[in-house]
């Protein structure tokens, strides 16, 4: 197993770094998990081993907080966000990467520039406009608002990928009788599958995780997401029920983590060219 190129110093440094980082990451989550299974009276003392494993907090979260409804809303918010982001960004990114037309570069940089633009300030006019045109407190209103960030991000990723594919692919397809659209649909799209998965995933997370837009553009009766519900139970001035809260964090936090594990390989490939 020993790699002849690595010195003992290198190994010590590496394992020391890894241990520190892993401890930093795992201890908080470990404690959150332990707390979620503690009986209520033990939540208020610091200990790693509960005297018994209790599911009381889990029952409360569904029976009292109705957290499943919020999770469902998060799911819908995320799915809509993902579909819309790909629908808007994919065709545009393809054209920006593979076709010539006037003002292509400035046009593209205006869109991707939004990535570093503090887009959150648009929540102010959007709230007012959404109320006026009836998008306030609707899923459609949320999905559209998520695109302010999701589209530029997706365009940046997708265009980079399309631009790195070999040149003359479309021409080759056309020589064999494909129309322009078929060249895109049958040749380019299948090749872009891993990066489309990444974009779907990132835009889904945007909807699932967002707090700002979901909080501002919905009311208590509307499509409130789990992130907003968690925020509400930590704010509001009442005493925080830490046991149920830790259950909620696990319920809202684990699905994206699982998705990340599946998407890892795609993501790594997607970001490999990010610096060029």
């Amino acid at each position, binding site marked *: 197993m020993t790699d002849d190129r690595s010195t003992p110093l290198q190994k010590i440094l590496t394992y020391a770094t*890894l241990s520190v980082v892993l401890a930093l990451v795992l201890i908080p989550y470990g404690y959150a998990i332990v707390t979620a299974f503690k009986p209520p009276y033990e939540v208020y003392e610091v200990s790693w081993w509960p005297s018994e494993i209790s599911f009381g907090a889990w029952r409360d979260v569904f029976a009292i907080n109705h957290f499943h409804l919020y999770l469902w809303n998060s799911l819908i918010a995320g799915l809509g966000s993902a579909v819309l982001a790909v629908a808007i960004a994919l065709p545009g990114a393809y054209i920006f990467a593979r076709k010539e037309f006037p003002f292509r570069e400035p046009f593209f940089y205006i869109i991707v520039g939004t990535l570093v633009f503090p887009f959150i300030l648009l929540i102010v006019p959007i709230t007012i406009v959404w109320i006026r045109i009836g998008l306030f407190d609707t899923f459609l209103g949320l999905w559209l608002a998520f695109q302010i960030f999701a589209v530029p991000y997706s365009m940046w990723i997708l265009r980079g990928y399309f631009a790195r594919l070999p040149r003359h692919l479309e021409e080759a397809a056309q020589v064999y009788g494909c129309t322009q659209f078929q060249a895109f649909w049958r040749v380019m799209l*299948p090749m872009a599958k891993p990066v489309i998965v990444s974009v779907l995933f990132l835009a889904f997370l945007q909807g699932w995780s967002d707090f700002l837009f979901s909080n*501002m553009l919905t009311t208590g009766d509307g499509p409130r997401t789990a992130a907003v519900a968690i*925020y509400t139970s930590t704010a509001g001035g009442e005493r925080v029920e830490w046991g149920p809260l830790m259950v909620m964090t696990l319920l809202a936090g684990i699905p994206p983590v699982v998705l990340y594990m599946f998407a890892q390989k795609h993501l790594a490939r997607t970001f490999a060219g990010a610096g060029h």
Partner: protein
Amino acid sequence: MARTIDSPAVKGRPERDRTRRQRSALVEDRWLIFVFLLPTTLFMLFLLWLPFLQGIWMSLHNWPFMGEPSWRGLGNYRDFLTADYFWTSIEATLIYSLSTLFQLILALAAALALKQAFVPAKPLLRGVMLIAYAMPPVVVGAIWLFLLDPSLGMITYYLIEFGIIDFPIYWFADNTWAKWTITLVAAWTFWPFMFLIILSSLQAIPQSQYELAEVYGANLWQRFLTVTWPNIQGAILVVVILRLAFNLAKIDQPFQLAGGGPGYETSVLSILMYRFAFMSGDFGMAFTVGMFLVVVTVILLAPFAILYQRHLRQVGG
């Protein structure tokens, strides 16, 4: 797909046919460009530019959440510049943006460690390190609120147990601690984004470059300087630019943790904007603060953008 490519539809046709085909392809090209750019254009118009212009218009008004707006000219801007919380907010914003640096240190260290050939179970380790970033920021925020709770939090407990502090610290309500605490929690939450991109770019370095450096007798540090660093410089600039911009635009987690207080101590510009809009219902003032956020973002990003331009010229990209 394979069948389409294999069918020799136009092989051996006369020359005239081919030019006509090329001309019609050009028309088709224009249509494709037009249709494919339509969603992007509509998006830009209706979700970016019109709201932005509407926002600027609002910032020139006294614009309550409900009720009639009234013209104020530059009154909101003047009020904000002369308000006593103006500098408090700028200071909080600058401190909070330092979390970018903490994120970079963590990410670089972890990525370099995970790049080493002898480390086992790499996919698992990489996955574990991504956890904090995968979770919604308010989820991570809730966990840290619990850990740092002054009366029953684990961290306060151990700090007292080990005699590091004598009294519980109110991490999120203390005048000096609050802004540093939200900064460090942000570092803990968002570093995996940098880690992911830096690691991807580390893994793309051809092994032959390291072997060559070794032939010339380069030691560990020299190998880092001559091979690793030049290869990841571009990626690092990109993540610093993105993360800095994202950190400046964060509201959810720092607001959840400290609510912008005590007073205005943790009211970074984005939170101040939020407070004006949704706590005081003053939408004109809220967008005014947003405009200052734009200015601060541009100023802070400019040096890194220039460095990145220079880097692109060097590598000829």
